[in-house]
């Protein structure tokens, strides 16, 4: 079994798809010679050439829209939006165009395009280079949304995103690019819409995405030392959402913490909490706890940034709060 970093896993998937399928190509800013601002596409220009590893001008609307247009002709483009923050510039094309062509045409068109992007705090870029905006896109009918947290998952999920006939917004997390993992020799596609239980537990379910999956796993280990058994579940695909897996887990543990790096208010976790309270109301022994960033743009000074975004200790505090609600 080869060991791949999260970054290499993304590259591996893109390269495998491009080797097998002429309809797959990638485009984005600085993805060719430079290999992308995160180094994800490093070396791909040499293998596939500039026609299929297309550097674009700094034109998010046009590059997103060109990917959509090529997808409407049956190609499977993967557009890289350098930072999630720059999705704001491409949002008209993603939300009004990609998400709606199939619908507005009464089913005549498919738009098999993937928008890869990354974000996340922890390196003090300030307010415009580290937002977590997945909640904007899960709110749009017609889009699928993926947020992968491990090398194995990013590999299998990206493959499925490329070969899904719908537009997919595919979130990667900047601070995860370096993490490594043994992955299967052959790429195993992971179906969209399937959650992953990372850790079995009895007392509390933590539903976490992206970086917070890892923070939750750390928190779970610490909680175990206090005798609290924590189950950690990563939905992986945020839309469509594997509601059954989440509800099943909470019915077992009777307590739930929802954790993501994006701001808590109106976040993805709010929808998860609504689904859990409806689907597992009679099983819940405590209010659902929510973990996320404070309601502020991301500050620059490291001490402020560190304070604003959630970490393992915040997840642990939430676990303790929910356990403390038990009338024992």
């Amino acid at each position, binding site marked *: 079994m080869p060991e791949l970093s999260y970054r290499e896993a993304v590259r591996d998937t893109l390269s495998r798809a491009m080797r097998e399928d002429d309809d797959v190509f990638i485009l984005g800013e600085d993805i060719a010679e430079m290999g992308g601002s995160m180094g994800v596409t490093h070396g791909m220009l040499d293998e596939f050439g500039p026609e299929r590893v297309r550097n674009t*001008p700094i034109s998010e609307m046009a590059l997103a*829209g060109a990917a959509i247009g090529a997808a409407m*002709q049956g190609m499977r483009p993967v557009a890289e939006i350098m930072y999630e923050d720059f999705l704001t510039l491409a949002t008209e094309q993603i939300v*009004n165009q990609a998400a709606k062509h199939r619908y507005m045409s009464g089913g005549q068109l498919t738009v098999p395009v993937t928008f890869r992007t990354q974000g996340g705090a922890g390196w003090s870029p300030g307010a415009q280079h580290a937002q977590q905006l997945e909640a904007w896109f899960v709110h749009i*009918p*017609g889009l699928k949304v993926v947020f992968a947290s491990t090398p194995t998952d990013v590999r299998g999920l990206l493959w499925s995103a490329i070969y899904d006939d719908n537009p997919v917004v595919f979130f990667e997390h900047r601070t995860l690019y370096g993490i490594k993992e043994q992955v299967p020799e052959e790429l195993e596609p992971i179906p969209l819409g399937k959650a992953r239980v990372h850790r079995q537990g009895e007392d509390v379910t933590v539903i976490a995405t992206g970086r917070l999956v890892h923070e939750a796993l750390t928190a779970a280990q610490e909680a175990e030392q206090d005798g609290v058994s924590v189950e950690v579940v990563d939905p992986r695909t945020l839309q469509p959402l594997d509601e059954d897996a989440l509800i099943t887990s909470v019915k077992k543990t009777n307590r739930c913490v929802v954790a993501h790096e994006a701001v808590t208010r109106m976040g993805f976790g709010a929808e998860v909490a609504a689904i859990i309270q409806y689907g597992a109301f009679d099983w819940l022994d405590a209010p659902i706890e929510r973990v996320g960033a404070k309601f502020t743009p991301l500050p620059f000074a490291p001490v402020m940034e560190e304070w604003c975004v959630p970490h393992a200790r915040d997840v642990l505090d939430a676990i303790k709060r929910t356990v403390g609600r038990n009338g024992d």
Partner: protein
Amino acid sequence: MAKVEQKGTLSKDELRDFFREMLLIRRFEEKVEERFRAGELPGFLHVAIGQEAVAVGVCRALEDGDVIASTHRAHGHTLAKGTTPNELMAELYGKLEGCSHGYGGSMHLYDVEHGNLGANAVVGGGLPQITGAALAFQLRGEPRVAVAFFGDGATNIGTFHESLNLGQLWKVPAVYVLEDNKWAESTPERQHSPIRDLSKRAEAFGMTAIKVDGQDVGAVYAATRRALEHARSGKGPVFLHCDTYRLRGHYIGDPQVYRSKEEQEDVREHHDPITLLREALGLSDEEFDEVDGEVQEIVDTSVDFAKNGTDPRPEDALKNVYA
């Protein structure tokens, strides 16, 4: 300066055929106005009365396999690209038989089989996708061209500039058709653009621009043929600047408080492409009435077809969200 295209070399029979199609589009849109005012048509409707020569001149020049993206003012483009009046009218009535099966409406007319990738209700919204469709043709080595329609108002939006830059940079086989009708909704061109010759915007990207009298269908046809040849031969996209006029308001029911009666009358009197072509062809009243009777019958039939169409079930709204 963009080259100004001269008259084409269409035969009189071909021009009469074009005339018939322009008149069909005119009568169709007049019927749409009438049925909207009668309260039969839901939604937000925009007619392109006065711009028929652009729709017909461009679409008749296209080859099978070429694709278009249209605007909110799309009835003419849609008919000219091959959608039947029945299917178009059924769409405006929200019926399953409509060209978008009741999911689109006037501002979202699609007919993928006929190469219509959709009318777009976001100004400039289709330009990036036409650039991308053209890129797909280029990557696959297919001799096809993708054509975007848009108005002068769209030349101020970011998608226009980003798409023309990208299209020219990559030399994709696209034709960007500016329907310069002098109005961005209620805002006249002098209020929305600091320059009068909008071709300069394309030329700034190094793109070949052709300027043509958009009220002369023969000239539009000839210019489009030349633009398509350029794009298809791998020389890159062409900006086709069609000087045209919007004879009506922005939307059906627009009182046009922003536009003088004199200007409206002047445009109707001197720039109506159908009147101009009728004169050029020297059609007698009898000849005109014969064609007019034929197309009016087609339009009336389309209304009957639409009214007798199938209403979607409310829950059909949940179909087609995902493939």
